[in-house]
């Protein structure tokens, strides 16, 4: 057994110091929705700073995080500590990413970031149909005691998750994506976390506004519908609903031929279908790849090439690509 597999095994298994909360103890077990609400509220109401480490396959990335909230306003600053230097600011749904090496500042609007707390309360919320919550004990992470809860999938079309939720606030301080037999595909964890850190929104806002010396880029994404682009899924993949669809306008691309991205989600995992014109020079094989929990699968559909990408098993991606159907000539 390699050292890596031993480490993963140690991480995946419950260590000896984990205390299992007896059933019916101080608080009754929460449902999936209750856990998700708790997680979201924690992020909306708490200020913190910390160091985040993302482990995906053989990759390890780390960043410093500053997070503040002020009633309904949220601000974040994420500064990468590994790889390409990059600083990302978020103010609610507005995101700006500074890359010092290229002196570019990319400005985007991520509407999806505002969706979910409300979506959890709607009748369309199908998450409990496809996942169950199981509380599995508690553990200290980055100096904070956390409740461990597993969201287990009810079928094989999606992955499970193990979440460490800080005991007092509910903040997610560690999150693992689990594959077959509980294998850890990816992990996001704070190695250091300071709650209620004295970060002010004004200071972060001033830094976010300061784009002097940077070329500000606003990628042109045109919102559209799959129907307008001439596509449909002849068979829905259980649990996954269409969330959004857009085309990425690129200079030099023929009108109407811009690549399309169609995003699906089951509430916890998301899948993107990228559809572009088939090019025999570039699209030479039906490729499949994986990095951490993210898999991809490609297929030719008539005069088009579709690549499905998502944090789901490859078999699920193949169902998507097999179900994609052209409705226009």
């Amino acid at each position, binding site marked *: 057994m390699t050292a890596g597999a031993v480490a993963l095994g140690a991480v995946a298994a419950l260590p000896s110091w984990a205390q299992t909360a007896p059933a019916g103890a101080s608080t009754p077990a929460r449902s999936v929705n209750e856990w998700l609400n708790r997680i979201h509220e924690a992020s909306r109401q708490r200020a913190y700073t910390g160091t985040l480490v993302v482990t995906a396959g053989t990759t390890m990335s780390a960043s410093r995080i500053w997070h503040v909230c002020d009633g309904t306003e949220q601000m*974040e600053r994420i500064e990468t500590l590994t790889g390409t230097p*990059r600083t990302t600011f978020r103010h609610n749904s507005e995101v700006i*990413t500074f890359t*010092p090496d290229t002196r570019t500042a990319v400005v985007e609007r991520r509407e999806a970031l505002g969706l*979910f707390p409300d979506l959890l309360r709607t009748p369309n919320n199908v998450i409990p149909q496809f996942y169950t919550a199981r509380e599995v004990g508690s553990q200290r992470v980055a100096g904070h005691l956390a409740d461990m809860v597993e969201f287990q999938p009810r079928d094989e079309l999606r992955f499970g998750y193990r979440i460490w939720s800080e005991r007092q606030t509910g903040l997610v301080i560690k999150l693992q994506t689990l594959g077959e037999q509980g294998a850890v595909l990816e992990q996001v964890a704070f190695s250091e976390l300071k709650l209620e850190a004295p970060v002010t929104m004004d200071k972060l806002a*001033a830094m976010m506004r300061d784009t002097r010396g940077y070329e500000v880029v606003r990628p042109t994404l045109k919102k559209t519908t799959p129907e307008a682009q001439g596509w449909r899924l002849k068979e829905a993949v259980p649990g996954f609903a269409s969330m959004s669809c857009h085309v990425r306008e690129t200079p030099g691309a023929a009108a109407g031929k811009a690549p399309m991205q169609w995003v699906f989600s089951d509430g916890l995992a998301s899948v*993107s279908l990228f559809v572009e014109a088939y090019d025999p020079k570039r699209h030479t094989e039906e490729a499949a790849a994986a990095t951490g929990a993210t898999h991809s699968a490609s297929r030719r559909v008539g005069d088009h090439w579709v690549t499905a990408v998502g944090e789901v098993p490859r078999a699920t991606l193949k169902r998507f690509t097999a179900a994609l159907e052209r409705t226009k000539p």
Partner: protein
Amino acid sequence: MNADPTPSLPTRDDAWSALFDGAVAEAEWSAIAAGGDWPGDTLARYQLIGDALRAGASAVPVTPPGDFLAGLQRRLAEEPRPVPVAVPVEPSVVVRGPAANDGVFRWKLAAGFASLAAVMAVAWGLVGTAPAPGAAPVLAQPSPAAPALPSAQPVLVSTPQGPVVRDARLEQLLADHRQFAGQSALQGPTGFIRNATYDASER
């Protein structure tokens, strides 16, 4: 320090300096901005100072690298070319006039910068986007400024498991997918910071 027409504010230069340190509140900023002519040179100087203090030796210059290289090459072309001279090893210390030493040292610095800039320009041309030379030989970095799907060139990447071939186009799709992967209840709070942290070039 400039004379301050508004006694309640700090001097203008102090206020601008505080702004670049992120220590100026909204109200003060409005007062500064409304208060008169734009001290462009001062701002550029304070930004450079701030960058240098925060980034130390790796401070990135304000001018784009291409412009810097072009300007440097222009200035080098205008200077007389130095004749390489074999400098004999002196066993004893010889005191020379400061003017002659300064000239040689300045040239060595200029030559050093020119070779560094030339290496960066070549690396830039190869890569197309960002990374600095001397980093791991990663050539595929999804660039947010280039939304077009890059061609499916296989790219050699160093990993702890040895060289691995990656698909530059697939890397771009992965980056585009992560941009929208916030559309899930779990990925919303955690997924956003996860995606902002994750760096594909680290494979």
